[in-house]
């Protein structure tokens, strides 16, 4: 294509370039749209998963739990604590001769502490007296 032909069709060329620019911009917008629709849900899923992991870890694998469970030793008079055995991240508890109030107190504390209750046994040993055995871990 020589210079004369370019001159001859310069209007068409300018228009073609402008059209190509517009089409390029349009495809850029389409690709941005596709990129966002493909990645937004994926990114949000990743964020949701990480935040859930953080939440679970904070709740069920709290690092300060070893100290928090010490309360189960002193929550009722020591004479009623038959067993308090803490080893690593596990604890075994046994109480005897608990009144209804004491049982409620221990139960509420247990339920509100984020530890895994492996087993729980509550028995009425006498009229309004209870024994409680519990095994937990975190």
């Amino acid at each position, binding site marked *: 294509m020589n*210079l*004369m032909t370019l001159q001859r069709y310069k209007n068409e060329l300018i228009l073609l370039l402008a059209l190509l620019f517009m089409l390029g911009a349009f495809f*850029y917008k389409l690709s941005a749209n596709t990129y966002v629709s493909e990645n937004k849900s994926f990114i949000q899923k990743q964020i949701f*998963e990480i935040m859930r*992991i953080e939440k*679970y870890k904070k709740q069920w694998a709290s690092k300060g739990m070893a100290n928090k469970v010490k309360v189960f030793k002193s929550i009722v008079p020591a004479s009623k604590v038959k067993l308090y055995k803490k080893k690593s991240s596990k604890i075994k508890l046994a109480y005897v001769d608990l009144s209804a109030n004491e049982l409620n107190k221990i139960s509420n504390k247990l339920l509100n502490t984020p530890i895994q209750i492996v087993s729980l046994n509550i028995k009425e040993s006498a009229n309004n007296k209870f024994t409680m055995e519990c095994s937990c871990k975190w």
Partner: protein
Amino acid sequence: MVILNLTAKSNNKLLIHRDMKPITLLENSIDIILTPQFYTFIREELELNFSYQAKQIAGSLFDDYLDPNIEYQYHVYKCNNLWCFFAYNIDEIDTFLESIGIEKHRVSKIYFAQQLDTILEEPLLLNEKNILQTVDDVVTIIPKQLMDPNLEYKSLDTSMLSLKGGVTMGSSLNSFISLKETIILSTLFCLLGGVFIVEGGRIKSSIAKEDAQLSQLLDENPRYTSSISRQSILEKYEPINKHERAKRDAIKKISKLLSNQSQLKLLHIEKNKITATISTKNQNINKQVKEHARSKKFKVSGSSLDVKVEKTL
């Protein structure tokens, strides 16, 4: 026929006139100088500052001189204190060039013989019939027979001459699309393009916040980068979360079954099963406890005044 050789950087210049001999073996681009046979010339004194203004009124200046049925192109430049207007028909020139063997793509620029007015003060012999000479500052074709038969014609040496301005062959031909339409449509396309780019940028930036949050979370916890690792951790904690919540929920529901008339005898949690035995004072209470337990999705059993409730978590 006169071929003018200019500097090595310039194209050869060819004076174009009727009755010239065909050109053969033209290999390089050339510039052509049109004789008045191919253009109409007017010189006017006008109060204009710019040539585009002059070009806008060129058509009306030639109204009385040109055939209205033919489309003309115009060229304007300032000559001394006057404006020099040229009207020419590019199709006519094109046809003529083809007839003498000059392909139009070989023509680089078109000049007008008027631009040689000072040089042509002395007559130039075009052919046996015509000469070219400046008369009253206008380059004119004059029949040779009107000249003195003894007059000696000098050859035209333009080796030191440089012609300015000129018209490109291509720009003389009309485009399919007018300049006005080109400007309007190009502006529209560029505006639309701009809008698309801005819109695209806005769309992309819409996930920038989430992207930044994810990057921050991954920087703080690099081991969560792998989806397998994340799934593995979630698979470990989700059952714990589900079962522990279910255990606590079940205990709370059992506690709501207790009252002065219904007391807990036994509560047992083992793995994913919770069992409780509740002793009631009378049949009415027993029935109420059983109904409440059933409504709370417990499996209910038991004889006499004891109610055994159980649920798989």
